[in-house]
Every structure is written in structure tokens, then in C-alpha cells.
């Protein structure tokens, strides 16, 4: 036994020391010398915004695939490599990517990417809305569904890109200006159009409470089954309160998001006799080639269909 221990204990000590030494070293930052700027975004909405600004002058990689919830996500090897190699990383902020004990924070920390040096929140210039009730200390992440906020996102992103790649500043500025103009026009038109919805019908019913910013911008009242996606979805209490709001209003149609299960909303439809008139986009763009595959397209879709569904 003594002989076995004499062999084992030193080996184990060596193993432990080796481990401590390994974790204590400065992690080697992967060399980021590419000809193009390497940009990583968390979701497809930010990805599209970056594309509109950079065109072909930079490479963009988006982490959360379209149709997947960016709140809780398991990074895969490619995601981690991309982050390690990135010059700039954009996330939504406002608590969107904080699920899973902060998967995004862990990811960037692992790769030694620092806030405001490489990592930027697109929502930096946005005044956030808070969640309601018990969660009123938390913010609502869905700011981009108000086009004015979308514009602020674009400006924040553009500033960071220009600072990181001053050589192409002129091109970035040009594209940003053009893009912001398009978004502004869409916004103004929508605000005008929404005037013709009767007050009593201005209830926007969705599964998740993602439309607070949207409703404030376009003169509606938001109603939802569950407030944020991480909460229990479709509990009796939640169903009761949303049915109550529907009954007190004259609304003629319900909406369901492309990225959640329609089951709860279908139950609401059955209870109230109201139809689900359209799918809307929230956390993610549609797949490439389908309507709603850009931020502009997605907002246009939402605005057109919500207007249509409420005014009928």
C-alpha cells in the first residue's frame, strides 16, 4: 500500500498543480488579423442591421439560428470560435440574452471579449420599459419592435463599426443614413395608418408580452398570455387575465408569434370565438427567402398584418 500511495499521491499533486497552472495563465487571445472586420451578432435581427450597414465590407456571423429563442441558448463550437475571432460583438442587451445563467456573458468572458471594447449592446441608446407586477425590477428586451428604437439600434451599431474600421467610415455612414431614412419613412406611414383603428378595438393580443414598445409607438394596448418567454407559459391564472382583457374590449382578432408554440393562443381563440388572424415576428427574422427575412421586412409584415387584423 505504501508503494501504491508513494506513486499515486505525487501524481495526483502533479495533476492538481498542472490544472491550477493552466487556469492561471493569461488566456491567449486568438489573433484577429483579417482583412475584413469580423462581426458577430447574437440574433438575426441584429445580423440584418449589421448587413445593411456594412454591405460586403465586413463579415457577419450570427449565433442564434433563426426560429430559436435567443434567451436560453447552448453555444456550439462554431459559435465559440467565431466569438473568439471577432473584432466586434453585438447583442441586444436589456436582458434578452441572459438566460441559462447568462449564456452570453459566459461566452464573451470565456473568449476574453470586453464590454464597450469589443462587446456592444445595440440597445445602449434606448430608454427601456419595465416589466409589470412582480417583475417590475426587470426590463423588457423587445425594444426593436418600435421602429424608432430600431433606428437607435442601427445608430449605435454603426458608431461602433465606424470606430473599429475607420478606413471604410464613409461607406458605412452613407449606408446607415439611407437605411435610417427607409426605417423612418416606414414608421411615419404606419403611425398614420394606425389612426383609423377604432379605440375599442385597439387591443393587441399575443402569446408573449413582447409588444409593449410596439404598442406604445403605434397607439395600441398590449395584452398577452405570459409576460416573458422564460415564465411558465399558459397557466390558468394567465389564461384568466388575458380572457378578461379580451372580454372588456371590442377586438376582432388574435395574433401568435412565429417563434412560440401556438397551443395556448389556440385555446384563447376557442374560448373567445375570435380567430388568430396572423403570425407575427418577434425574436427572430424569417428564414432567408421568406417574407420577413429582414428587419425592414419583418416590421413591415408586422405593421401590415396587425393593422389589417385589428381594423377588420
Amino acid at each position, binding site marked *: 500500500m505504501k508503494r501504491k500511495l508513494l506513486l499515486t499521491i505525487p501524481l495526483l499533486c502533479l495533476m492538481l498543480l498542472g490544472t491550477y497552472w493552466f487556469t492561471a495563465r493569461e488566456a491567449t487571445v486568438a489573433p484577429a488579423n483579417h482583412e475584413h472586420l469580423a462581426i458577430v451578432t447574437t440574433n438575426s435581427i441584429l445580423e440584418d442591421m449589421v448587413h445593411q450597414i456594412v454591405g460586403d465590407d465586413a463579415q457577419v456571423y450570427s449565433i442564434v439560428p433563426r426560429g430559436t429563442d435567443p434567451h436560453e441558448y*447552448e453555444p456550439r463550437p462554431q459559435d465559440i470560435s467565431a466569438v473568439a475571432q471577432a473584432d466586434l460583438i453585438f447583442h441586444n442587451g436589456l436582458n434578452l440574452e441572459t438566460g441559462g445563467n447568462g449564456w452570453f456573458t459566459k461566452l464573451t468572458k470565456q473568449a476574453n471579449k470586453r464590454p464597450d471594447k469589443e462587446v456592444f449592446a445595440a440597445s445602449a441608446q434606448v430608454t427601456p420599459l419595465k416589466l409589470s407586477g412582480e417583475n417590475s425590477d426587470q426590463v423588457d428586451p423587445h425594444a426593436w419592435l418600435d421602429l424608432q428604437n430600431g433606428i437607435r439600434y442601427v445608430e449605435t451599431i454603426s458608431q461602433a463599426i465606424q470606430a473599429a474600421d475607420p478606413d471604410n467610415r464613409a461607406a458605412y455612414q452613407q449606408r446607415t443614413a439611407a437605411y435610417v431614412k427607409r426605417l423612418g419613412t416606414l414608421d411615419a406611414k404606419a403611425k398614420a395608418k394606425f389612426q383609423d383603428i377604432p379605440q375599442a378595438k385597439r387591443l393587441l393580443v399575443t402569446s408573449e408580452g413582447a409588444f409593449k414598445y410596439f404598442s406604445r409607438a403605434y397607439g395600441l394596448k398590449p395584452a398577452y398570455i405570459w409576460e416573458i418567454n422564460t415564465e411558465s407559459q399558459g397557466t390558468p391564472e394567465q389564461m384568466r387575465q388575458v380572457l378578461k382583457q379580451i372580454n372588456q374590449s371590442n377586438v376582432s382578432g388574435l395574433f401568435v408569434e412565429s417563434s412560440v408554440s401556438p397551443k395556448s393562443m389556440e385555446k384563447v381563440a376557442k374560448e373567445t370565438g375570435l380567430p388568430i388572424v396572423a403570425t407575427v415576428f418577434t425574436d427572430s427574422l424569417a428564414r432567408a427567402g421568406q417574407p420577413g427575412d429582414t428587419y425592414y421586412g419583418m416590421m413591415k409584415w408586422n405593421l401590415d398584418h396587425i393593422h389589417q387584423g385589428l381594423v377588420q
Partner: protein
Amino acid sequence: MASIQAFITGLSQYNFLQTALLTSIMVGVMSGIVGSFIILRGMSLMGDAISHSVLPGVALAYMLGINLVIGASVMGVLAAVLIGYIADRSALKNDTAIGIIFSAFFALGFILISLAESTTNLHHILFGNVLAVSDSDLKLTAWILAAVVLFVVLFFKELLISSFDPTFAQAYGLKTTFLHYGLMVVLTLVTVSALQTVGIILIVAMLITPAAVGFLWTNSLAKMMVIASSIGVISAIVGLFFSYTWNLASGPAIVLVAAVIFAISFILSPKRFGNRLFKGGVSDEA
């Protein structure tokens, strides 16, 4: 091959890959060691049960801010105690007791997780993500590996005899109950560590599959543990390689590699039927 080259380059470049490799190697070694005893004692189902039963411990650890290892270990041992109690004090068989307890603990854990204010990723706990292992997780794994190795070296002959001939062990006065619970504690520690690489659901694979390969290739317990650990390590490295090259979830990739190695061993090994001259048992006509 280009992808192997890319993997090696990645290893030299990326801290996350290096950490992942070290962690899964350590987990491979200790699962092989502990798993050998688990399968020889007929406790494969128990191994699965303990790994599921730690879920409420993990949830409570997050909720109350207590140490994860302590939370999980308490639950793991509690489950083992309850299983033993039910099996001993009633006519119900061991696997029935196991099924009842572990599903109840698992369900409790699930509810606790959804109640936990901090949004703990259930998917992460269930399937692990060795690419997200932090430095403190790695250090913890190293300590647990040291504890497991020390335990087995110190108590090897006691573990051997209580696994091989429990009647004799008890008859000559060996404290078999202590040994059993000691093994349960060690199993729980290994589970907590393996949580990171393969998650709760697949831990049992890391315990059993490499040990089963060891069983098929040798007639010595010590060699079986060495083979089991080696297969655990090889599965980890190859699994990580596939995960990195094809952008797959790492835990499941490791488990599948282990399963393929088992399949090959099963076909090739001469020891499949346990060396019996007569398949039905050992007896000859007098």
C-alpha cells in the same frame, strides 16, 4: 487529414477547447474507474438513478446560493439511502425502489428549477456543454478526480471483495454498508463533475459504456479500470473532435463515440460469454 489539423490548431489557439479537452479527459478517467465497480455490482440502474436524483440538489444550490457539490451530494446520498430503505424493508425489488425514487427526485428537481428565480438553463444541466466549462469547474473536476483515485487506491481490496463476494465480505466483518455508501458518495461526486460534459441524462453512458468495454477485454479488475478509463478518455477526445469539426453538441458526440467503441468490442471480443465452457453454468457430470 485537414480536419484533424484544424482541430489541433484550434486546440493550440482556443482556451475553451483546451479546457473542454482537459475536463472531458478527467471525467473520462473517473467515470471509467467508478463505472467499473458500478457494473460489477449490478448497479447500472442505480448509477442512472443517482445522476437523475441530483437534479433537486442542483436546483437548490442555485436557489440558495450553496455550493453545487454539497447540494448535489446530499441529494444523491439521500436518494441512495431511500432506495436502500425501500428495497430492504419491503418485498419490492431493487429496480422498483430505484424507479420510484429517482423519478420522484427528478420531478421535484424539475419543478424547483422552474421556480428558481435565476434562469437556470435546464437544457444545460440535462445535456451539459463541455465547451462552456469555467476555470473553477475545471479545478473542481481535478479535485474530484484526485478524491476518486485516492479512494479507490486506498480501498481497492475492500471494494474488490465486497463486489465479488459480498457474503464473504460481510462474514469476515468488513463494513460493507459503509463501503456501499462511500461508493455512493464517490458516485455522486463523479456525477456532479460529469454534469458539465455530458449532462444528467447521459452520465450513465460514461459510467457504463467504457466499463463494459473493459469487462469484455480483461480478466483483472485493475486492468478493467485502466481500459475503462482509457476508453473514457479516447471517447472524450474523439467526441470533441467530431463536435468541433461538425458543429455538434459535445456531450452526445462523446457518448456516441463510446457506444461505437463498445459495438466494435462486442463483435471482436472473445470474452463475450464470460469464458464459460458451458454456457448454462459451471457444472459437469460427476
